[in-house]
């Protein structure tokens, strides 16, 4: 089954039709999606600016990550669920769209990178436990989340 025919099949399902034809569902789910992105942007901004050595440098990175990482995980779950509803509602707009897959690629990379370089910080005692490339990686995270927003908005126009 090709991506296109899967999209056509999904489009024809009753649940997809319901999501599309109930006028408030798509705008509501999109609004919740943006709220969850706001949680990530706020949490990532504070955490990554700390790790970049700009914000709250008197606080240990472990403490910052311990506060904000659970919020990022929670928001990612909400993004996944609301995003799934939007894909089911409008399969052609998403799974047939290159920008959508670029977005998924960046989100997956950010997720994996968080597991690899941020989660271990939960047990780090102080700055000396930071990886050597902590600062560039911090900026990379902020760049990735910005790119995710960029792709997200452009899905609607491509």
């Amino acid at each position, binding site marked *: 089954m090709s991506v296109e025919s899967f999209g056509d099949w999904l489009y024809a399902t009753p649940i997809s039709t319901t999501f599309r034809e109930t006028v408030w569902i798509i*705008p*509501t789910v999109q*609004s919740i999606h943006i*709220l969850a992105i*706001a949680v990530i942007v706020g949490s990532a901004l504070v955490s990554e600016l700390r790790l970049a050595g700009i914000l709250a440098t008197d606080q240990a990175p472990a403490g910052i990550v311990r506060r904000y990482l659970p919020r990022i995980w929670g928001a990612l779950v909400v993004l996944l669920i609301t995003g799934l509803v939007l894909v089911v509602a409008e399969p052609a707009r998403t799974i047939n769209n290159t920008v959508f897959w670029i977005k998924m690629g960046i989100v997956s990379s950010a997720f994996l990178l968080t597991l690899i370089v941020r989660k271990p910080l939960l047990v780090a005692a102080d700055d000396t436990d930071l990886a050597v490339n902590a600062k560039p990686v911090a900026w990379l995270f902020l760049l990735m989340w910005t790119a995710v927003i960029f792709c997200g*908005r452009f899905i609607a126009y491509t």
Partner: protein
Amino acid sequence: MTLELTLQQIYDSPISAAIRENTNAFPIIETFHVIAITAVLGTIMIVDLRLLGFTSHRRGANRLIAELLPYTWVAFALAVVSGGLLFVSNAPAYAANVEFQLKLVAIAAAGINMLIFHGTAYRRIADWDTDTPPPTSVKVSGVISLILWVTVIFLGRWIGFTLDVLF
């Protein structure tokens, strides 16, 4: 009549036409708007949650507010500029849109809520800086701010579905 004329003049301006005629201009400005509002809400949420008693990376509310507010303001300025450009691209349609009007009211209400907070509870912040939970008046400011900003996001998204585009 005067307002209609002004809106039409904005619509007829070169910058308005440029945004309408350049295919990528609107989505790019919109992307900056989304980045800005998520940064505004993301940072305000951290402060509002603290006003409700949920601590973040600092125990003291005063230090947290002083630390995050500059970021909120920069993001808010970007939201106003990008939002202003989106408005300019089709001023009469936005002005006539109920969700857009309500969004401006909600932003104004959030501003008033912030002014009241700064004029009252914030003046006595030394008394409750490290209290969790903080006094009720502080919690009320935090709840109102959260509700209003979430409302702003919902209304903003709704504009995209209700705007009468006159391209």
